[in-house]
């Protein structure tokens, strides 16, 4: 299936990125250990930031009050984890940028999140399915990071891992309830799964930065998380009476800073205040 028009990045974005001014770009030289670490941390922190922001968009709009509160709380966990990951990324970079500067003052091409988390929320089922597909990766990722050779990363992973254990419990529970639910809810969950499936492969595709981080024992190779993810997903989909799509096609590029058009539309409201009034505090 050809990607929808809105999924294609505006063609001149890559050129714009090259000409972008220094602010918002990592000054570390590519290929150095510090740059690899910065990118690895940005990938972690940008995933939780962008997903946290997406989930927060539900605040005040959920189908029932309890789910509205639950989604807001999950978003809060994710944003809290973002502060830890991007805070450390800023420290590693050493250019005086803190978590807020990285979150609110970078442009789309400097974000390193996977495309899955920038997908629009869709209906409640699609939001939950996206969360489950992410959580099934996030939980084993954090478990692996607990063994990082970098103690600062291991400490954050231990903290976040306890929170994410509840995220996956909730998202798996609801995917099962809605999948193995009414005809309507089952159909919506299957549609959500089919729609999001082309975006799961990116979680497991490593590049040279990943390879160097893995060989230094800092972060696991993305490929190494696939079997744990498959086990969780297969079990939950079976319980949910949903059919796992067969396609292995994977949209990718987010982890290298190539995003879909949705990313700009997400960043505009998220960053507006700090762009209009840089450094504003209250």
């Amino acid at each position: 299936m050809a990607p929808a028009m809105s999924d294609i990045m505006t063609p001149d974005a890559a050129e714009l990125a090259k000409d972008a001014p220094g602010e918002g770009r990592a000054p570390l030289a590519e290929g150095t250990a510090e740059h690899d670490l910065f990118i690895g941390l940005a990938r972690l922190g940008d995933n939780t930031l962008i997903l946290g922001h997406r989930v927060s968009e539900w605040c005040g709009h959920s189908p029932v009050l309890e789910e509205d509160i639950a989604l807001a709380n999950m978003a809060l966990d994710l944003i809290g984890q973002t502060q830890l990951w991007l805070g450390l990324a800023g420290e590693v970079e050493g250019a005086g940028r803190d978590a807020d500067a990285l979150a609110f003052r970078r442009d789309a091409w400097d974000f390193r999140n996977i495309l899955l988390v920038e997908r629009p929320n869709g209906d409640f089922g699609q939001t939950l399915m996206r969360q489950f597909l992410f959580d099934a990766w996030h939980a084993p990722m954090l478990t692996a990071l607990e063994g990082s050779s970098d103690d600062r990363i291991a400490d954050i992973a231990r903290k976040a891992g306890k929170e994410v254990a509840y995220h996956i419990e909730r998202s798996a529970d609801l995917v099962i309830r809605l999948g193995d639910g009414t005809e309507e809810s089952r159909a919506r969950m299957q549609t959500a799964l089919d729609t999001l499936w082309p975006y799961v492969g990116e979680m497991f595709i490593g590049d040279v930065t990943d390879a160097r981080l893995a060989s230094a024992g800092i972060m696991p190779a993305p490929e190494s998380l696939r079997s744990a993810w498959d086990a969780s997903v297969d079990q939950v989909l079976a319980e949910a009476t949903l059919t796992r799509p067969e396609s292995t096609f994977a949209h990718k590029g987010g982890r290298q800073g190539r995003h879909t058009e949705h990313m700009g539309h997400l960043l505009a409201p998220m960053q507006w205040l700090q762009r209009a009034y840089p450094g504003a505090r209250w």
Partner: protein
Amino acid sequence: MVAGVDQVWAWLGEVPDPEIPVISLTDLGIIRGVAYQGDTLVVTVTPTYSGCPATSVINFEIAKKLRDNGVSDLRLERQLSPPWTTDWITPEARAALKAYGIAPPIDGTAADGVIAGRIARLSGDNLRVECPRCGSTATEKVSQFGSTPCKASYRCTDCLEPFDYFKCI
């Protein structure tokens, strides 16, 4: 006169948690250290949840309490490891939570992130949480996340009381 470390602990034991005012910061187990580095009093605090919005209020309350008692040379440090656990909530605080209407954590029941072992529980064999109002265990989970990330929403099917359960973490 410089306040002794024991005195500082006692003061911190008088600072209520901003969201659950019936328990103190020391009851909650989030004060991880009180020590002097030279003339500077260093209080080490660990966050409950990464995104807990009470964290900055807690730091403000700690500083206020100590400054009100004459401590002027003060530094607050954040410690992430070991991560906070509900196991550190004192027995007195658990009783206070229950009296306040919040079911206290049931130790050893934290989620572990491994879905395989949890599926049976997800499909019905739920945690037995006692209703803080009537004591019945005929209760059911409404949502994994309640009024804050640290609590789940429950209801009692006997007395119909909706209540928060302080989740194990």
